[in-house]
């Protein structure tokens, strides 16, 4: 279950959080981790440029 919790506190800008059961992740961390996974997959899939091999 995806739920966005915008906390209400004395401090401004309390951030966006995503929660699935016990699992809670902050927006910034989610972006960083998702970016890492995407970069990893792209690194495996995208062709690497460069000259062909030589002896």
């Amino acid at each position, binding site marked *: 279950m995806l739920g966005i919790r915008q906390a209400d506190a*004395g*401090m401004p800008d309390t951030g966006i959080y995503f929660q699935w059961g016990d699992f809670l992740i902050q927006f910034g*961390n989610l972006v960083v981790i998702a970016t890492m996974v995407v970069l990893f997959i792209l690194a495996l899939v995208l062709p690497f440029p460069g000259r062909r091999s030589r002896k």
Partner: protein
Amino acid sequence: MSKSLASTSWRARNDIASRPWPGTTREYDLFKELVVGLVVVGLLVLGLSAVFSSPDEPTVTLKSWAVADPADFVATATTELGGTSGTAGYGPPYNSTPDATQKFGPIDLQSLSGVRLPIDTANDFVIGPLQTLPTPPAAIDEWTKASDAQHTAWTTAYGDALSKAPDNDPAKVPSGDYGPVPALTGALLAMAQQGTLDPVLSAKGSFYNADYKASILFLGDGSYFPGLADAQHLTGDQWGMMNETGNYPGQSWLWLFSALYQLEPFKSSPSADVLVVFSMVILTLLLTLVPFIPGLRSLPRRIPLHRLIWRDYYKHR
């Protein structure tokens, strides 16, 4: 050579992985890679900094706490006087409260250091600071002359009365046998609200200070400071270890450390911290020593992502 399983052992043998590569090569300019890396990463750093800046929520002070939530401040000061606060019951390295330490089976590492950063909450957080006032309240005398049992009786009675009062407001507490406690906590509240408690508590009458443990511990014993942290999702049961204020990414690399605090048996254990730290040490050692661990080190062969990485090589066999 038959098609035997490719070895994932760490050992240097007389095989292809262990010898200098005798086959075909390609031009690969490491310095050019470094310079391109510096340019790309530099642009990323400058761009992200310019667009997103960095978080900087202002500090909480004893003054801001005493002004924003005086009832919580007085209730906390009462527990510091009575020796019932979190810090007073912490154990080493702050004090020698019995049975307070976290244990891993029979191992009690918390007691190893002994009381190296001693804190007597009644004297260090309340009585001592009040004595620095130009005219210390007369209630100090009454407090210091009374027995420990009397101290406990007064602070327990006042603590109970505070918790039952409307809004926990010290002004709405019915009269009772609280001894000098209301005068002491009231004087400390006034001191904090004027902003004079902050320097006194951290610098302990000296000019310089770099150690803020007294102020941090006093703040943490209340509900105001932890409440603010809770609103920012920074507490341990909110995966707070990896979180930053606002939407900024925090220490996401602590995800596993944070995750363990959400799981049983750690979650409800009174020794959660020591159990989590031990587990993290073991898991980190496992990853560090993975080349020596049969089974674990064969994962790259069983889940052959390497065929993607080296697909050019395997294509031209």
